[in-house]
């Protein structure tokens, strides 16, 4: 099978000259040289978790930057009626998720109350009747899935003459019924929500002891209990009238839509539509609202913006101070090193919380809360960075290339910034990134504990949001859920990203801590 090779007797004509005419030379390198940062980037790209973390950070950053501009609400927005409503997104609500609904258990009175709002507004309040039980005393209890937005129903509003006319014009133009007839006052002490504005129906029992049970007509509907008058335009009402308001049997009984009082008109409005009239948008809070009726979505973005801003500026300032300090310490060494090290040691030993508190006590009134917090972070924050740079300088300053540069007459400044510093840049960048989650955590902790008060009419922070929601953890966990989720994702991402950077810059340190 194998051909017998006779290497000794190769005929001469089989030989040809190689490269007889071609010049012998090195081929030019086709690829680009890979520098330090390129190398690090290549390695970083391979680290899947770090890349994902980085994208997450970018998304969260964009969220913090963009949302305050595009949101319909701002931090100072507060709505007394849509407070603690649940997260809702109209698109997803069609599929029955993210729909602002909650499970509620109510007695007969509550059952009637909720269903009656639905009947009057024409919007579904009770999305689903889940269960119906009877307790030991024979009283029925209903478990329902209730829309926390539609549940608000009606409220009384006192409008000035001008606002009243504007609202009527709005009704006429859009054809949307906002003002509903006023109802007769019930004698019962049973009142649920919005000062009784939702009790528009007849009750079974009008005593003070009534539990709010309604009577139904033959179709199972609620029977209206509106105030009537012979004057069709009572209190100058000249706008849309609800269905069924057609003058009654005698043609002369009309519902009353407004009452004149000293300051203007008292009307009963459908709050959903009234909200739309006032704010121009349908009530829809993606992350719900908190106990003050603030939009959590917007507040979270504002708080995140504050955290990012603080963290980035702290990191930058610490980077500058720490790098210079560490460079001087590490480069000169000796007595300078010992003295400077002692100073940073002392600063490092003061608990951060003490520094933050003292700054707040002394300077908060003079320069503002936020600059104070920044000072506090900067005062002790650079120590770690300085230590890192110092170590790098100790490592590099004795190396031959530095000696060579010195022999050639390079000045100290040139040696520091041109020769040694670039070599330690990787470590320093990693350190700066890994410092960011710490700053964000400390900021949220301080504002949570109330040591730093970052809550003003136009400012909020994640810590403040958490502390506002803590009391309602059992009833409205969504107030805390979103800030907590946000900060958790942020911290995880920054840590993964920082670790990825470290591995990329120092492949030899892979997996080691610090």
């Amino acid at each position: 099978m194998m051909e017998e090779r006779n290497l000794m007797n190769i005929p001469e004509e089989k030989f040809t000259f190689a490269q007889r005419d071609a010049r012998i030379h090195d081929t030019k390198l086709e690829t680009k040289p890979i520098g330090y940062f390129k190398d690090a980037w290549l390695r970083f790209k391979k680290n899947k978790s770090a890349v994902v973390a980085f994208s997450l950070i970018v998304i969260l950053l964009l969220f913090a930057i963009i949302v305050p501009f595009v949101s319909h609400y701002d931090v100072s927005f507060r709505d007394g009626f849509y407070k603690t409503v649940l997260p809702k997104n109209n698109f997803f609500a069609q599929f029955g998720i993210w729909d602002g609904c909650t499970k509620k258990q109510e007695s007969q009175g509550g059952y009637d109350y909720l269903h009656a709002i639905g009947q009057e507004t024409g919007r579904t309040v009770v999305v689903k009747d889940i269960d119906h039980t009877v307790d030991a005393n024979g009283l029925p209890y209903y478990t329902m899935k209730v829309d926390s937005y539609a549940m608000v129903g009606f409220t009384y509003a006192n409008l000035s003459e001008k606002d009243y006319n504007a609202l009527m014009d709005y009704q006429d133009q859009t054809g949307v019924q906002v003002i509903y007839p006023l109802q007769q006052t019930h004698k019962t002490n049973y009142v649920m929500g919005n000062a009784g504005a939702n009790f528009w129906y007849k009750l079974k029992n009008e005593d003070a002891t009534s539990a709010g049970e309604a009577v139904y007509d033959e179709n199972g509907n609620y029977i209206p209990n509106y105030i009537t008058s012979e004057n069709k335009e009572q209190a100058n009402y000249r706008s849309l009238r609800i269905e069924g308001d057609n003058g009654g049997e005698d043609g002369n009984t009309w519902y009353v839509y407004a009452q004149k009082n000293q300051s203007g008109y008292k009307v009963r409005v459908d709050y959903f539509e009234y909200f739309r009239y006032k704010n121009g948008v349908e009530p829809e809070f993606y992350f719900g609202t908190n106990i003050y009726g603030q939009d959590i979505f917007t507040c979270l973005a504002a708080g995140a913006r504050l955290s990012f801003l603080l963290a980035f500026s702290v990191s930058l300032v610490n980077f500058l101070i720490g790098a210079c300090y560490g460079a001087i310490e590490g480069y000169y060494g000796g007595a300078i090193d010992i003295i400077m090290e002692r100073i940073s040691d002392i600063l490092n030993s003061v608990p951060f919380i003490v520094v933050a508190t003292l700054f707040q006590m002394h300077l908060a009134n003079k320069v503002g809360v936020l600059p104070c917090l920044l000072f506090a972070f900067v005062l002790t924050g650079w120590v770690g960075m300085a230590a890192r740079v110092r170590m790098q300088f100790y490592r590099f300053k004795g190396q031959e290339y530095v000696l060579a540069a010195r022999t050639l007459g390079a000045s100290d400044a040139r040696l520091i910034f041109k020769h040694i510093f670039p070599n330690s840049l990787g470590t320093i960048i990693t350190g700066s990134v890994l410092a960011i989650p710490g700053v964000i955590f400390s900021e949220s902790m301080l504002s949570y504990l109330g040591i730093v008060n970052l809550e003003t009419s136009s400012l909020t922070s994640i810590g403040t949001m958490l502390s506002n929601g803590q009391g309602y953890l059992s009833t409205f966990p969504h107030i805390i859920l979103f800030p907590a989720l946000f900060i958790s994702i942020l911290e995880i991402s920054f840590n993964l990203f920082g670790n990825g950077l470290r591995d990329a810059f120092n492949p030899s340190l892979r997996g080691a801590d610090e």
Partner: protein
Amino acid sequence: MTKYVIKRILLMFLTLFVIMTMCFVLIKLLPLPAVREMGRDVNLIMAKREQMGYNKPIMVQYFLFWKSIVTAWDWGVGEQMYEGLSVWNVLINKLPYTVLVNLYSILIAIPLGLMLGIYAALKKNRWQDHLISTLVVVFISVPSYVYAFLVQYLFCFRLGWFPLTLESLDNASLFSAKMFRSMFPAIMSLGFGVVAGLTRYTRAELSEVLTGDYMLLARTKGLTKAQAISRHALRNAMVVILPMIIGEFIGILGGSLIIENIFAIPGIGNLYISSINVRDYNFFMALTVFYTFIGLASGIIIDISYGFIDPRIRMGSKK
């Protein structure tokens, strides 16, 4: 060694002294808190302040402050809270809660962290290791208060396994099971971070040690894997892990401000927060010294323990 220890301790007291001086001056520069008028004789309080030397120059006050500490271990009395009570006594009374909660948490967390870390190191690069490592990153990154909310919501509200508030001392003694049960949510929230940190540390150290040549030698000379790991690898890994555990034990005195706040544990942390909120400077000063001291002391003890655990590490040498 002794010389090094003494030097470190002296240096520590110097640092503490500098920090105390700075804090004292900074606090005394603040205006005195206004006297709350409700049902009090303002003049009497003013006279008391005068008698306590509050109107003297700061340096004189500082001297008096040291004098009372050195002669009578007197850290002053509460002004805005625990009025008239000795700051030191209040502090000592609060300490057991903080210590107990933290002690329980690390007593549970340390074995757990060690076991998980060892397991991950032995299963290195298998799915168990990946799972544990991922969880460790998550648990180290997520802030402790987030667990606290989660634990509170899940175990206290939803499942109702644990009471919401701490048992009072009238109902249960400090070391009773009932007290332990009411402390458990806080213990759990504190523990997650410790477990995660220790797991990561143990895994990193042990997997480093496992690749050492002497491990190969140990197996070659006939030890089983278990023997080699427990006699050689673990012991060497402990050189680094043990000081960390010691550090945890000292840290229990300080406790966690935020966990104590969330679970309303009447410990040192809560005392500190309220001293800031009501501006009680005597408490603030004493607690600042307390916290600084713990921080400094734990640094020293960790450093020294390296030398004791592994005599090869020469403390204070030039190199």
